[in-house]
């Protein structure tokens, strides 16, 4: 592993030529809590920087020798593989998401959204749901994008509808569903209809119950008027990535733990009861946090379950899972995530039962 070390050395040169040089910010005697102070360069920053650099380079060079005896348990290593695997799989989509959201913030004027969406919020919701078709990516990408939509003045109800529909009904996901269920186009239709319906229902539910309440932390535009567009793009991309990335890691750790701890055999005991199996597969989708482009294949392999239960798995997975709950808590605030996740789950399971009874 020489690359991380090399790159760190490379960055070190422009950032900190000589560790002994005192920081040029305010004197270390500053009484402000360091991380709360936006304008001044906190003294602890240079300490944190030096420690981080030393620890990381040290680990890159000697980490495996130092900890060679510690992580030998098979279960721990399987967990670590799952954890790194979920992170590595999701990270490119998160980067895509913050790239798009930064581009929305920097290059698309707020007036565009005002023109594109109907004035009345109740009408803006279905339009936003349907436009989820255009974002081909995993669910991780849609969280920063919908946050950017909110900060551009799009009504939260419409942004929520987009957040829920984008990862579920985009062409990549529908195509992979068609491949996973060959000869059963009704599954694709049922999935698209249910996901669209759920996203609209939650958008409207927000209009009825959430409007004006304080528990959604509104993502705000942080940029003063007249800031250069590239500067806005760069700083909002970095900001979004730093905020979402940590929560992605929490979600990946939760998903890995559940993957290793929950035995798959207990699934077989509930497959025969329709209501129970729908709820259990919905919960499984929440716990496993499989990305929406692949969940159809997993659903197809759960052959002991009815199509309705597997539909619930595919409808719940892209809109509420442990990784997403963590990401949403980081982006919209924990109070929002605590209310939003159960509401989404209940509506998704209910809609799956309804559409499954009607179509499948």
């Amino acid at each position, binding site marked *: 592993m020489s*690359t*991380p070390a090399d*790159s*760190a050395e490379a*960055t070190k040169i422009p*950032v900190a030529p000589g560790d002994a*040089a005192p*920081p*040029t*910010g305010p004197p270390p005697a500053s009484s402000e809590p360091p991380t*709360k102070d*936006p304008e001044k360069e*906190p003294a602890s920053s240079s300490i*944190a*920087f030096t420690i*981080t*650099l030393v620890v*990381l380079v040290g*680990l890159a060079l000697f*980490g*495996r020798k130092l900890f060679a005896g510690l*992580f030998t348990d*098979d*279960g721990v*290593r*399987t967990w670590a*593989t799952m*954890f*790194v*695997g*979920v*992170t*590595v799989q999701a*990270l*490119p989509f998160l*980067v*895509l998401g913050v*790239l798009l959201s930064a581009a929305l913030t920097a290059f698309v004027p707020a007036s565009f959204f005002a023109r594109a969406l109907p004035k009345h919020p109740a009408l803006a919701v279905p339009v936003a749901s349907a436009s989820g078709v255009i974002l081909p990516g995993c669910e991780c990408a849609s969280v920063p994008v919908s946050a950017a939509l909110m900060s551009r003045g799009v009504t939260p109800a419409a942004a929520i509808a987009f957040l829920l529909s984008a990862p579920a009904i985009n062409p990549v996901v529908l195509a992979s569903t068609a491949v996973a269920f060959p000869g059963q186009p009704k599954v694709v239709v049922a999935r698209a209809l249910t996901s669209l319906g759920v996203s609209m229902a939650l958008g409207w539910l927000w209009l009825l119950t959430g409007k004006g309440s304080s528990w959604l932390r509104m993502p705000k535009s*942080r*940029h003063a008027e007249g*800031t250069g567009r590239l500067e*806005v793009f*760069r700083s909002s991309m*970095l*900001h979004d990535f*730093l905020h979402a990335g*940590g*929560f992605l*890691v*929490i979600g990946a750790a939760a998903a*890995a733990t559940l993957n290793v701890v929950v035995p*798959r*055999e207990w699934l*077989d005991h509930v497959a025969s009861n329709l209501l129970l199996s729908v709820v259990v597969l919905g919960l499984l989708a929440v716990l496993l946090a499989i*990305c929406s*482009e*692949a969940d159809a*294949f997993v659903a197809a*392999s759960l*052959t002991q379950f009815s199509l309705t239960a597997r539909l619930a798995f595919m409808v719940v997975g892209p809109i509420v899972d442990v990784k997403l709950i963590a990401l949403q808590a980081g982006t919209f605030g924990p109070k929002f995530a605590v209310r939003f996740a159960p509401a989404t789950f209940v509506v998704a399971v209910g809609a799956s039962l309804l559409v499954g009874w009607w179509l499948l």
Partner: protein
Amino acid sequence: MKRNVAGLVVVFVGAAIVQLAISNTYLRYVKPGMRWMLLAAGIILILLAVADVLADTRGKEHADDGHNHHGLPRAAWLMLIPVFALLVVDPPALGADAAQRQSPVAAKPVAPKGNSWLANSAQGNAPVPLAVRDYAVWAVWEKESMKGRDFQLTGFVTPGKDGSWYVSRIGLTCCVADGTAFMVEARGHAAPPKNQWVTVTGEWAEPTKRADGDVAALTVSEVKAVTAPANPYE
């Protein structure tokens, strides 16, 4: 001169992804098709960090007025945990431990990939090389075309109960989170060490009955230890 912690963390995460993508280590965690996405994401992150550092050193006043990104949001430190795991634990590809957590029963295929080519090919003595995931399904669900023929499978050793063992592979659809074990019981040969990669040659055998279904089996005539393939998944 400012010391930019955010840039440092982002550059480390980016460099770790690039390193994964160019060293083939990424194959332990995701599908081969992810390589270019990983490279692109890593390079974008490194560029982002470099741009941030450059903006700093030019001494430009920062436009974002509500946030300090020299000090890091606390959650962002967590991104160093996967980097730490990569550097220190060096997580291996999923193997026998993951397989043991799953049932060795192969699910009935939704649309069986036809193996009619097998029936048409010459009934010679040459063993037919097959993917473990194909054999695990066909040996149970396409019995008739498999009977009395020799096959060659490559996979890792998963110990079972009472000295039995399986030739196994993990199948991925997206990443290791959805890894599904495909297992074939190897009969008539003592078990090699756990996680050893082997190529086994043998004849189709009647599947083993279990409470939750049938498990594919092979009467092994030859076991050869091999090195693990670059892509351990099927």
